[in-house]
């Protein structure tokens, strides 16, 4: 084949060009830390990357949702703990009052404390997380008890006493509130009953009867102190179980976050050791091409005919 100067120079130009474009690719990889800069560099990596990003963002959001769930459940647990404490004191007071050695005056004093505890329990029913009343169902703007003595908020008791659910994973939701209206209604009814007993001068055994699972209030049967206590414990156990679920979910999500981050990185992050090595290799090839090119191009027969 006849080889001419223009062939050699165009050949060299082409090779230098290819070499430059390779170096520019490595440079891009090193500068951006990513294997690809546009989808067509590697469609699979690009589309996978988009998927991993969605997964990662979702994961972060679910973790944020779980933090919210935790706040609600922890506050509810705390509130129910206080309810338990108050009920314990009520039991002590009833046991004390059931003793017939008490004078009417003594029972009045016990009753006074009972009133305080009753108010305290109503306050607990109005516990808030941030701006939200936690025992008010979906009416988080309104307290369960609007005043010190009246009945429960009718908006809540007639239909508003619903669960509030948030999403903790794709297709998995969790109830974050506790519908406390029934529990507090029972407590309130019981406290009113005890007050009536104490104020009406009932006998010790009559007062003592209030401690049972059920008490007779006139024609109605209402839950006694033990019944209420059990009720409160059941509700609290449910909260505890949900706290466990949240914890498990948090663990699972943080594990998933690590996995997805790892895959995202494997998928599109530059392998620096490899890329720098490739880059250096390419550099030396490029230099060789330059120096050989310079030597060949500059010489023609002209240089030797004088």
């Amino acid at each position, binding site marked *: 084949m006849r080889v001419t100067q223009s062939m050699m120079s165009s050949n060299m130009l082409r090779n230098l060009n290819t070499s430059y474009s390779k170096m520019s690719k490595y440079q891009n990889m090193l500068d951006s830390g990513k294997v690809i800069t*546009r989808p*067509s560099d*590697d469609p699979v990596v690009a589309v996978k990357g988009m998927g991993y990003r969605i997964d990662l963002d979702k994961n972060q959001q679910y973790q944020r949702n779980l933090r919210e769930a935790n706040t609600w459940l922890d506050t509810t647990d705390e509130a129910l703990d206080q309810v338990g404490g108050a009920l314990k004191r009520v039991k002590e007071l009833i046991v004390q009052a059931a003793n017939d050695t008490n004078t009417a005056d003594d029972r009045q004093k016990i009753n006074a404390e009972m009133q305080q505890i009753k108010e305290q329990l109503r306050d607990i029913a109005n516990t808030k997380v941030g701006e*939200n009343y936690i025992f008010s169902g979906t009416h988080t703007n309104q307290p369960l008890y609007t005043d010190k003595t009246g009945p429960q908020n009718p908006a809540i008791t007639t239909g508003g006493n619903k669960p509030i659910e948030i*999403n903790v994973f794709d*297709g998995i939701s969790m109830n974050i509130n506790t519908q406390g209206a029934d529990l507090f209604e029972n407590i309130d009814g019981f406290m009113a009953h005890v007050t009536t007993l104490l104020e009406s001068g009932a006998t010790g055994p009559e007062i003592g009867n209030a401690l049972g699972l059920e008490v007779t209030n006139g024609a109605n049967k209402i839950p006694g102190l033990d019944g209420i206590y059990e009720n409160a414990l059941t509700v609290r156990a449910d909260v505890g179980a949900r706290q466990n679920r949240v914890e498990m979910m948090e663990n699972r999500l943080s594990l998933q976050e690590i996995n997805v981050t790892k895959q995202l990185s494997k998928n599109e992050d530059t392998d620096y050791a490899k890329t720098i090595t490739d880059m250096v290799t390419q550099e030396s090839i490029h230099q060789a091409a330059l120096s050989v090119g310079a030597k060949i191009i500059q010489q*023609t027969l002209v240089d030797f005919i004088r």
Partner: protein
Amino acid sequence: MRSTFMGLEASKRGLFTQQTALYTTGHNISNANTLGYTRQRANMQATPGFPSPGLNQPVYPGHLGTGVEVSSIQRIRDQFTDRQYRQETNKLGYWDSTAKSISQMEDIMSEPSEFGINQSFTDFWKSMEDVIDNPKDTAARQVLISKGISIAESFNYMDRQLKQIQGNIGNEINVSTDKVNSILKQIAALNKQIQEVEPSGYVPNDLYDARDVLVDQLNEYIPVTVSLQKSGGLAKDVAEGSMTITYVSADGTPIKLVDGRQYAALATMDTNDRRIDGDVDDQAKGSYANFKEIRIAAVGEPPGDPATGIAIDYSKMDPGKGTLRALIDAYGHSGGQGTYPEMLANLDKLANEFITKFNEVHSKGFGLDDSTGQNFFSGTTARDFKVVITDPKQVAVSDTAGEEGNNGNMRKLAALQSQAQDNLKKGTFQNYYKSLVGDLAVKGQEAERSAFNSETMHLEILKRRNSMNSVSLDEEMTNMITFQQAYNANARMITVVDETLDKIINGMGRVGL
């Protein structure tokens, strides 16, 4: 009997011939770097010997040579390599242009990234989840509205940018068509000049070169075939004649683009029967009418009006050949096919589906102010995609009136994000968008690879062509020495003849003087 001065004459011919060859070498060296220049060679041949045959020829032992002459100066070129080169130019033009238009699209979509449509979908979903966590928090609701606006604007932006580039491509189609027309006209003009000089025995090598360069350029835009028609008169054997250029449509119909001094004119028409020029056709949508056909006017000098010429529609164009076809593939043809219109239509479809589905659920819910039946978004395309809710209280989070802590409806809205949509190839909104990017990426990769391969092939053939055509300085230098020495030797011959004549004229008959 031979003439006394015959030796002088033979050497004079030698001088002239070697000089012509030397000058041709000089011409080659001067044009070593000229684009499209083909090296030339002075073809030498011996002049008829003495005596020439005839009735009265002298009887003479042997046939005496009378010197040399240049019979022609010829380009050294191979038409078959030219043909291969031009075929590869077709492909390179197509893939180069396709790769460019796809890469521009990729630049706009900018995926994977932290600011594309994909991310705005995710951000929107995240703000929905925040509202679910705090249904009555007006700040969270406000953020949701802002993220809604950002998703709408992402669609608006993409629609605008893609259409702008589509317009640029339309403009490029117009410019390319003009360029093709100009090349055809120039080739016809060269044909005319060539036809004028060839019958007088000239071989206009440099006009041939110029014409071949134009044909190379023409093949970048459209695939054409060439054939040569010899000139009449005293045209030399090596004269190439005038060039006929034919466009062969996919169904095999040949259409003449240049015939001698006559040339055709092309026009690329859209479905509105207007020339494609990249100007917005439908102002309201900012969109463009698709390519309909190329019209080719009958050859003439000047040619007729292309608007009334032969129509070549998309199906009659050779696929994968030439920039013009690549531009049309990107710009759009045959009822909305093509890279850009398809992407735009898919974005419209995605936007419409998202708006419809979201509004459907949203309008069933209740806002903090118990408003219901409200749409969150408006619009049916990526272009008019907008958020209509302005008051955060009106975001329908609750599924029951009067419950500020109820997030039932927003949960349904958030769940939409991971629901498969029947109209979107049974994928979620984001999956559908992902598949759009994936398809584009695969097309882009194919175009890049094909462009690279065509370029390699193109260069390989160019090398082969250069091996035949291009000037080698070493070779020319060698020739230069050869011709120079031959010239010198001829001059010496004249001196020798001169000395012999001097002997006869001045030295003869002077015996004893």
